[in-house]
């Protein structure tokens, strides 16, 4: 019954989470890149300053050797650390003349560019991060300063860790809140849709006019609900037209059938005339039942009036007694207790009970008794001594146009022609349903059938007339 479905709220949550992760990733990349660029710029500036600081103290000794007289502070800076900072003074052809660390200088010099500027030294065992340096020309010399890249790496790392420790938490909080708001909005926004689906589950051809509630709908959902309501209206119109057609067709057949009946009645008595009259009666009966069915289908039955089941039973029995007596079938009413006050539709109940009695009379053997039993709990039963209904068929006989096996029809019955339409019991079921009750058939001790019409609207607990 339930098709493979997906849920809007989790899907939204997942997508928001994905966007959030992507945003955090992009922000981290941007921050990292910015940090690296900044660190490089800082390197650049710091190294230039150092180069100048060294170059200021450079002189050329007679004899062509460089002469460097560094103040103690600078001296310490270049020689004090773990050889992180190195200065090198070379000839224009990059022959080292002077350096703070000759071993390092030998490694660095090959990477120095021909022009002035920044340069890099790949990683070495002594400098696992590699080095970065700056070279510039002063008079006859090139002065270079290099330092470990570790320092800029440290800066980048600290910037990134700063970002992750504070920025990420902040972003997560914002993102989580956004996701929750999203889910809540979806849930809240879909509530009218849930109301609509509850209403939709109650749509029933027996109760036309039901529509989905279209108040307070979000604009995204409103078109669907409105379209569904319009579709319902169209379906209802079509259904109504069809039902009206059944009713009108049955109605229109009455006049020609009246002409036919009158013509047959004018025929002189003969076996053939009798058969023809019976056939016409059968058609009449079918048309009457179709009209009743169409009427039951067509409009909700007003079941709000107080009804007297005893009066219903007396009316139905009185109506059928003249038909039953010539067949040697006796009708009787048996009352067990006083029926509880009841609301319902008198005319519909008479029709339903009439159909039950007719059915019983049609199947009862000559000389037998058909009893209408009125029990206290809004229960009417029609009891006959006919062949009964096999258990397998007890449900099906209440369906429209159901035809029982031929053997069940009492062949010599005058009413046979009048009952074979297959709508009588369906009408009973319809009348019962309109009274929030049920109709069924049971077996009977001593043989025969008990057709029961149980109504479900006691006057006290009446909740209005909606069946």
């Amino acid at each position: 019954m339930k098709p493979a479905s997906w849920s809007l709220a989790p899907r939204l949550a997942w997508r928001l989470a994905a966007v959030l992760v992507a945003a955090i990733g992009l922000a981290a990349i941007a921050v990292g890149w910015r940090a690296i660029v900044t660190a490089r710029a800082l390197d650049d500036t710091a190294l230039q300053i150092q180069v100048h600081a060294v170059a200021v103290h450079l002189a050329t000794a007679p004899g062509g050797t460089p002469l460097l007289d560094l103040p103690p502070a600078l001296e310490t800076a270049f020689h004090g650390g773990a050889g992180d900072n190195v200065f090198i003074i070379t000839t224009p052809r990059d022959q080292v003349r002077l350096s703070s660390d000759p071993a390092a200088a030998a490694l660095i010099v090959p990477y120095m560019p021909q022009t002035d500027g920044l340069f890099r030294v790949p990683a070495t065992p002594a400098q696992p991060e590699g080095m970065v340096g700056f070279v510039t020309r002063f008079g006859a010399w090139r002065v270079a300063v290099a330092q470990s890249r570790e320092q800029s790496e440290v800066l980048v790392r600290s910037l990134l860790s700063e970002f992750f420790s504070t920025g990420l938490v902040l972003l997560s909080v914002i993102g989580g809140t956004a996701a929750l708001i999203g889910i809540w909005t979806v849930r809240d926004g879909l509530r009218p849709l849930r109301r609509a689906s509850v209403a939709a589950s109650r749509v029933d051809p027996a109760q036309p006019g039901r529509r989905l509630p279209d108040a307070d709908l979000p604009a995204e959902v409103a078109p669907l609900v409105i379209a569904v309501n319009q579709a319902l209206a169209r379906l209802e119109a079509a259904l109504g037209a069809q039902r009206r057609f059944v009713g009108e067709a049955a109605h229109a057949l009455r006049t020609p059938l009246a002409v036919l009946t009158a013509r047959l009645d004018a025929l002189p008595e003969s076996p053939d005339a009798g058969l023809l009259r019976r056939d016409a009666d059968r058609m009449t009966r079918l048309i009457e039942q179709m009209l009743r069915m169409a009427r039951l289908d067509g409009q909700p039955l007003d079941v709000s009036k107080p009804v007297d089941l005893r009066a219903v039973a007396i009316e139905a029995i009185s109506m059928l007694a003249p038909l039953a007596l010539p067949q040697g079938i006796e009708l009787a009413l048996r009352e067990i207790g006083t029926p509880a006050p009841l609301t319902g539709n008198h005319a519909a109940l008479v029709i339903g009970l009439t159909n039950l009695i007719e059915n019983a009379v049609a199947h009862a053997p000559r000389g037998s008794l058909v009893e209408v039993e009125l029990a206290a709990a809004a229960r009417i039963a029609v009891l006959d001594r006919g062949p009964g209904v096999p258990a397998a068929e007890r449900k099906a006989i209440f369906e429209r146009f159901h035809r029982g096996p031929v053997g069940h029809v009492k062949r010599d019955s005058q009413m046979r022609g009048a009952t074979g339409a297959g709508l009588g019991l369906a009408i009973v079921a319809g009348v019962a349903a309109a009274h929030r009750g049920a109709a069924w058939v049971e077996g009977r001790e001593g043989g025969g059938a008990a057709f029961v019409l149980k109504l479900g609207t006691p006057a006290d607990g009446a909740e209005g007339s909606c069946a």
Partner: protein
Amino acid sequence: MRLLAVEDEPDLGLLLRDALRHAAFTVDLVTGIQDAEDHLAVAGYDAMILDLGLADGDGLALLRALRRRGAMLPVLILTARDAPEDRVTGLDSGADDYLVKPFHVPELISRMRALLRRPNAALGVVLQVGDLVLDTAARHLTVGGTPLELSLREMALLELLLRRQGRVVTREAIEQALYGFDAAIGSNALEVLVHRLRRRLAEVGAHAAVHTLRGVGYLLAEGT
């Protein structure tokens, strides 16, 4: 007995007219309300058969106009409208009986006869079922031509059943008619009375019998 039949379906109208003439009624057949008014204005009728859906209007309008003018003639409505509320509307509008199409002509004739037997119709009506004939004015009963004496109560019961012969008369209706509202009657007084009437009829071999519908009432019909 002169009848006016208002029916706009030509075939049905002619069949009706012929059948009613065959049953010894004098019948005028018209097809519309205006025609019917014209006929009613110039001739006296004992009863009217009225179709509702007529070409020039609703038969009910004619019936209401008739009753407003105080016309008492019995009217039987003949219609294709069979919803219970239609029947109620018809009877409320002043119809005396209501027959839904299609109908059997003998049924229509017997209903017409019953209508004409009603108190506001002619006095001195003779009621009959099987070989049982009751002259209600003379209080004279014969069975197969032989007079039969009955007690007042028995006679009243028989007349009641005869007036509604072939149809069920409820216990309540009989008790009310025979004993009135106030009289305290034994719970089985009616059973005893019916039993006596049955025995009287059986003694003379009447070809009519009182059937019991236990819990409902009684029905008088031809046969034994």
